[in-house]
């Protein structure tokens, strides 16, 4: 496979800039580098960190389980789960390794129980902001080491799914505050949770109202317009921006519909098929997050959001580490190993 013996179609396009364009008179084999890259990345595996934020009972764990078709998070409504109303927002990170067709991915889901659940929700985003910054800080420290690891473990949050309750009206103050503050630090994907309580028209109105509110408050959600690089991307992302936030329904139960087994919620008035685009927009969300824009989410986090953090951090030369109240990261066995 790696030896491409077919004579390929060669295009004679000259590229400007400071280098000389040269015609290829015959087959060289440069194309094979794509396969090489594919094999190397498949061998190394991928990492993806996703954070779900929203009030309890909105279906966060169910949605994550539906997205990745496995029991990743334990739902808070299962009988064995002891739920305490926590007085503070606690973040809970769980990692799994999943594999599909030879592609290995380490998926980390960060849950935020307690967000928006108290009576007084002022500053409930602070633990989340601190967590995200801590991950950036960890990566930065690793990157600045003299002896660096070959692959720096990436625990930065690549995507934050924010659950909006399906009120049908508009964004609430807590939503606005949260998204304003975190929009610059992490890629936020807002979704309308439990969307089977809205009819299609109500859903459209709600979405328009949300988009207006987002604009009015200057909130940038993923895909951010300023990060579009070329016209094709802009067109594609524009279409996505026209349809956010996605109205989703999550479930892990299968039912029979017309002889097929589908994932759905069974009610007395019908079965809501999760993967049917006429019923809800789960499939769109899944396609966006996983099938088409997963790498882009990681790239935006690494190239833009992380760099912004780094610039800010390196400019704050007056602040010592102790003032930031970051715990010291224990290195393995007390020494810094350089893994080759």
């Amino acid at each position, binding site marked *: *496979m*790696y*030896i491409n013996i077919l004579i*390929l*179609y060669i*295009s004679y396009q000259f*590229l400007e800039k*400071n280098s000389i*364009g*040269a015609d*290829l*008179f015959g*087959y*060289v*084999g*440069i*194309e094979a*580098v794509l396969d*090489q*890259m*594919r094999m*190397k*990345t*498949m061998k190394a595996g*991928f990492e993806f960190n996703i954070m779900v934020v929203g009030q309890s009972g909105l279906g966060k764990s169910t949605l994550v389980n539906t*997205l990745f*078709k*496995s029991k990743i998070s334990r739902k808070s409504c299962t009988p064995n789960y002891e739920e305490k109303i926590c007085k*503070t927002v*606690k*973040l*809970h*990170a769980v990692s*799994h*390794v*999943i594999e*599909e067709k030879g*592609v290995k991915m380490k998926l980390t889901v960060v849950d935020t129980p307690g967000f928006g659940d108290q009576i007084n929700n002022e500053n409930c985003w602070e*633990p989340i902001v*601190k*967590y995200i910054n801590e991950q950036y800080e960890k990566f930065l*420290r690793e990157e600045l*080491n*003299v*002896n660096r690891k*070959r692959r720096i473990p990436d625990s930065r949050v690549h995507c934050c799914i924010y659950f909006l309750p399906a009120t049908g009206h508009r964004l609430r103050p807590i939503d606005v505050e949260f998204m304003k503050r975190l929009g610059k630090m992490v890629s936020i994907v807002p979704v309308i949770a439990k969307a089977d309580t809205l009819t299609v028209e109500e859903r459209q109105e709600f979405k328009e109202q949300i988009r207006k509110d987002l604009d009015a408050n200057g909130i940038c959600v993923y895909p951010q317009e300023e990060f579009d690089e070329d016209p094709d991307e802009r067109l594609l992302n524009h279409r996505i921006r026209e349809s956010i936030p996605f109205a989703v329904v999550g479930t892990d139960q299968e039912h029979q519909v017309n002889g097929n087994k589908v994932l759905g919620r069974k009610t007395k008035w019908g079965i809501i098929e999760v993967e049917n685009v006429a019923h809800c927009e789960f499939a769109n969300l899944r396609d966006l997050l*996983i099938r*088409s824009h997963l*790498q*882009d989410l990681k*790239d935006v986090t690494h*190239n833009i959001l992380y760099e912004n953090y*780094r610039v800010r951090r390196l*400019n704050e*030369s007056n602040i*010592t*580490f102790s003032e930031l109240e970051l715990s010291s*990261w224990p290195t393995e066995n007390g*020494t*810094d190993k350089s893994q080759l």
Partner: protein
Amino acid sequence: MTSSDVARQPDKGPRGLNLAGHVGFDSLPDQLVNKSICQGFCFNILCIGETGIGKSTLMDTLFNTNFENFESSHFEPQVKLRAQTYDLQESNVRLRLTVVNTVGFGDQMNKQESYQPVVDYIDRQFESYLQEELKIKRSLHNYHDSRVHACLYFISPSGHSLKSLDLVTMKKLDSKVNIIPVIAKADTISKSELHKFKIKIMSELVSNGVQIYQFPLDDETVAKVNTSMNGHLPFAVVGSTEEVSVGNKMVKARQYPWGIVQVENENHCDFVKLREMLICVNMEDLREQTHTRHYELYRRCKLEEMGFKDTDPECKPVSLQQTYEAKRQEFLVELQKREDEMRQMFVQRVKEKEAELKDAERELQSRFEQLKRLHADEKANLEDKKRLLDEDQSSFSKRRAAAQLLQAQSFTANGKKDKDRKNSGFM
């Protein structure tokens, strides 16, 4: 009121999980590859070899194109490097290729310093990447990577062994770049001599501890091919851009009176193997090795040289930032000290100059006084003399007046007398 507490699983590694259906992240490598296609690839080759050994021709043959090279003279006083960048495209893959050639390698009488410009060039590329990485506002994903990914070392086909210049140069470069030795102009060696030559070269390299690039064996799909290729090192190549008709095809070949050496015929030379190894199979690995091994080594040495450490004497982790801060304070303090010193020196000099000038002024003043006195004396003298002269003159004029009066009196008296005499005479 709020505190954050991250609960993580115990650190025995994440659990594996089975998927109940098709999720879709198997398209992830494709997404990655698509992004890379948009960005384009970058590859830098360094060719080291004596003048006229066939570096440029081999590059032309390898990339099937004409790179517009010109012959260099044999009289260069020093080894120089010439880098040229080209944009190639094959189907939808864009490659920015930089070919760096040595000019004048092996031509000088004294070749002791021949390797130094090459090492300097490689270090310069690493340095510029390191500078970009250490900048505060940086753009690494747009950065044009100019670090040397592969170094083709051209061995001249003597048939005996490596030259000492070759050994010295390769030893200096083996920790900085991936070295791939090739035997140039391989059509001058016969098959049996070639076999012995290759064995001799490899044993010399091993016995001198030169680490050349080994094709990677960890990936099953390419391990088999790479193992067999590792046994064929160094590749004996022939380069040619001229086409000769053999049978009913036009092939790249060199035509001699006694036969035709076909470049792409595996029985004639190892060119196809070189192309396959360098481009088709291992290009990505070469880039990765450069980045993760050679560049990291350079970075580590450079940072340690500058005084940065990961742990301070008490074995507590010290961050780059803290060291940097400490150094910065040190530097500022020293700067302040130097500034004070300079200021003091300046003040002192000013004082000295001022004293000097004052002295001079005083001296001048005294001279002036002295001259003034002299002048006054002279004047007084002259005044005296003038007075005397005046007195003389006045006394003289008085006497003259008196004399004249006397004369006038005596004249009139005489005149009267005369008149009387005259008058009396008459009488």
